[in-house]
């Protein structure tokens, strides 16, 4: 099996730390309605990096991709249905 190299791992960590400080800095700037989405997008990118490199999903068989994605898939139903009120409100 292929594995992440030491360099991959250190670069992943560096990217995570840079994004952490970007998130932190952006929270103290008034970016209007962009603040929260910007922070959340960066947090999701951080999560994907951890999954792909630290958790080695990138180097695993597709079956592991499906198992790793399943939890998030079910979670998306939970969240989307609970939020349906907010999604539908503006349609009146």
């Amino acid at each position, binding site marked *: 099996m292929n*594995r*992440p190299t*030491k360099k991959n*791992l*250190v670069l*992943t*960590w560096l990217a*995570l*730390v840079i994004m*952490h400080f970007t*998130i*932190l800095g952006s*929270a*103290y*700037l*008034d*970016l209007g309605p962009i*603040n*929260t989405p910007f*922070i*959340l997008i960066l*947090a999701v990118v*951080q*999560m994907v990096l*951890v*999954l792909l*490199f*630290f*958790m*080695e999903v990138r180097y*695993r*068989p597709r*079956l*592991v991709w499906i*198992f*790793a994605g*399943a*939890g*998030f898939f*079910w*979670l998306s139903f*939970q*969240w989307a249905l*609970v*939020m349906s009120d*907010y999604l539908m409100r503006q349609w009146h």
Partner: protein
Amino acid sequence: MPEPSTIVAEQFDTPDQQSEAAHLGMWTFLATEILFFGGLFLAYLVYRHFYFHEFAAASRHTAALFGTVNSLILLTSSLTMALAVHAAAQNHRRSITRWLAATILLGSAFVVVKGFEYHKDIADQLVPGAHFNPDLPAPAQIFFWLYWTMTGLHALHVLIGLALLSVMFLQARRDRFSSVYHTPLTLAGLYWHFVDVVWLFLFPLLYLIQRHP
């Protein structure tokens, strides 16, 4: 080091097959953990929509400095964990124990910092109840109820992770792991990284709501 033939349970044909089955099992468990923390984040999301301004006011009372230090500690501990697994794959046996020790130290540092932070939170009257900080609006108690629950359950996961890593450390010292067999180490690593992922969301959502002036 045990020979490959002695570490394959009888229901498996090869070490690879056994390792893959173990990985799928771990990912199934992690899916339940995603749903567990997902439910907590969902409760957070709903109440944040109901009481956005109160949540923002409450969030500004959290200790962002402690939070950011702990983020850096946890991110770095994930790196050292990944390096421990990397060392095992490379058959660098002494490096395994070194990186595991670093991970355990960093994880313990996280718990210690969290302890100081909780102490400050209690002194600042941020525990929901009769003695809640009178400067904050009442719904801020919901925020802090979620804060204590979510960070508390996360800290519990860190403690469980530390226990797992300690067992891995002892096994590594007994030379149990090699490039041929290190599945328990990899699975403990998956758990540790998962705990890190949860924190990646806890930190901005709890500490950083409307921090700007």
